[in-house]
């Protein structure tokens, strides 16, 4: 019993809700990578150990596995704070914004940077709960300023929108270069 107590003392730490889930997932990921070490790396012939392509990935995954195991051990022996699945749900809620961001990424080459950015900022602002005209106007202004500064002024590499091709002659080239 005394040994068990000493063991607990050694590895006990503060943990937040969801810590155990993360620790298990990380260790499982590290174990999977470790199982793939032979498959996904090559042991080169007539090559010294320090030049082997498998050396550093090996160091990485073995380190992940060993430290991950100790981290999980620490999680198991530390006092639990309630709210594990609420926390996991919180992580999963990020998927919604991942989806919005992905749609934005797809839209930019089609609609063009300026229009897509205005749509994105306005939509996100409303989704975040700001429905008043001041917030919406701020979002649109932010979208316009961002697009003009980065694409128009700083000439950051973002492709022109497909839709710009259908613009009248006078505006088309301007939109393709600056908007």
């Amino acid at each position, binding site marked *: 019993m005394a040994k068990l107590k000493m063991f607990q*003392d*050694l590895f006990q*730490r503060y943990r*937040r809700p*969801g*810590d155990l889930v*993360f620790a298990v997932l990380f260790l499982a990921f*590290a174990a999977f*990578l470790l199982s*793939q070490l032979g498959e*996904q*790396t*090559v042991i*080169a012939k007539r*090559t010294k150990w*320090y*030049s082997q*392509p*498998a*050396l*550093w*990935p090996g*160091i*990485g995954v073995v*380190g*992940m596995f060993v*430290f*991950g195991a*100790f*981290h999980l051990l620490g999680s198991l022996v530390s*006092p639990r704070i309630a709210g594990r699945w609420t926390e996991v749900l*919180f*992580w999963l*809620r*990020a*998927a919604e*914004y*991942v989806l919005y*961001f*992905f749609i*934005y*990424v797809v839209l*930019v*080459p089609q609609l063009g940077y300026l229009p897509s950015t205005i749509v*994105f*900022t306005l939509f*996100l*602002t409303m989704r*975040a*709960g*700001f429905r008043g005209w001041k*917030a919406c106007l701020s*979002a649109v202004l*932010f979208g316009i300023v*961002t697009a003009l500064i*980065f694409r128009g002024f*700083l000439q*950051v*590499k*973002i492709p022109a929108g497909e839709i710009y091709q259908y613009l009248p002659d006078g505006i088309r080239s301007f939109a393709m270069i600056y908007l």
Partner: protein
Amino acid sequence: MDTLISGLAILAHWDVMVALLIGSIGGVIIGALPGVGPAIAIAILLPATFSFEPIVGLTLLLGIYGSSMYGGAIPAILINTPGTPVNALTTYDGYPMTKRGEGHRAVSLAYTASFFGGVFSILCLIVLSPLLAWIAPHFGSREIFLAAFLGILLVVVAHRGQTFAAGMLAFLGIFLNTVGLEPVKYTKRYTFDQSWLASGFDLIVVVLGLFAISQAFLLLIERDHTPERATVSGSMMSGFKELLGIKRIATVSSSLGVLMGMIPGVGEFTAQFLSYTYAQKSSKTPELFGKGSPEGLVASEAANIAVPAAAMIPLLALGIPGEALTAMMLTVFYVHNVIPGPQLFADQLDFVMALYMALILLNVIVLVFLLFSTNLLLRIMQIPTRFLGMMILTLSFIGVYSLRNSATDCVIAMGFGVFGLILKRLNLPIVPIILGIVLGGIMEVKLRTAMAAVKTPLDFVSRPIAAILFVMILLVLILHLRTLIREHKTKQGPDPIGPDHEHSSQQG
């Protein structure tokens, strides 16, 4: 002297000056916004500087790097919310001073202490330059390998109570660096026959995901919070006079900041801890610490601002970053075709001097800006957090997509964004991943080069600097083990049941 004049000539261009001005003021504003750190801003803006002249792009990002902590002190003092994680200690004494009605005194003192610490550390850099120029060429492959290893080791053991987590994340960084085509034999490593994995993970994409996109997700999902309204009135100049009375603490704290900044993997938190402890132990009124002590405030601010400039020492001289921000600055240097390392001091000392002078100018610009615009910054800070999340996510797109117009990069960045969100929610450190990626790459290359000239294992540490570094590695390990044993014996280890909100593991 010629080098100094040559350095001045590099700086004396209108575009460099404009970049410095925008970077410095932008950095203060970014630092003042709780939830947005310099790492996020540098990651977003880096691709935007690709087309600039190297010195212009560098001064812009250097401005953000060096000035954000100034801004971070304002919300720390006035609304008890640190603008950047390293300003957390500033809340201990700054906010109680505000509650006593001494907000303007605290802010003024923080500005002047930061200015003192900032200029002090750059002067140390300038004084040390000849020594660095002399010593840097003595760093061969094995010395750089050992220094990088020391950096990884320090970043792991510096996370007390989270050593295993920091270790596994550092190794994750080392692993991530190896994914893709191996550069010598051109064999695939962990690509799973996926073409998008063949080029590996770009550091900027990973950094943007872990720092910026994760923060955007966090702000958008969490309940909206608008920082409370605050104003300051009164002379901002009073801090200069008051600092003269606390100059011993300011000097020692700045020196500790310089010393800790120079050691890879240590950084602001340790510098602050040491300087705060020193200030409290040597104070005539130690009971005031944590309750609004001007000495505590000076110790915290002078130490944290001294670190970034000092962290440039291993970065510029050896090409070894000490923490996440310097790891990003290393990328900034590479992107702008400036390769930090011994050769930089040998061939481009005037360029290095220009960077130092830019850092001094930056401190002057920031101080002047802050003396007249604190209330303006307090109004900017009123941006609701969810709106801020929207802004960060929109800007992150530029950082990721403009690298190579790749939707795959965006998906990878989003993946790291979700991973960063989980780490932030669990208060697990992100910095070891970044250092693992950067230092892992350095170690792989340097070990390969070094071993070619090594016949027996002892040869590896036979040169004086290598031997010193090896002894330092052993010392760090022994001291860490000793601390663990002592903590276990006295049962004074980190409190296993928290709360841990007073010390964040996040940086940048």
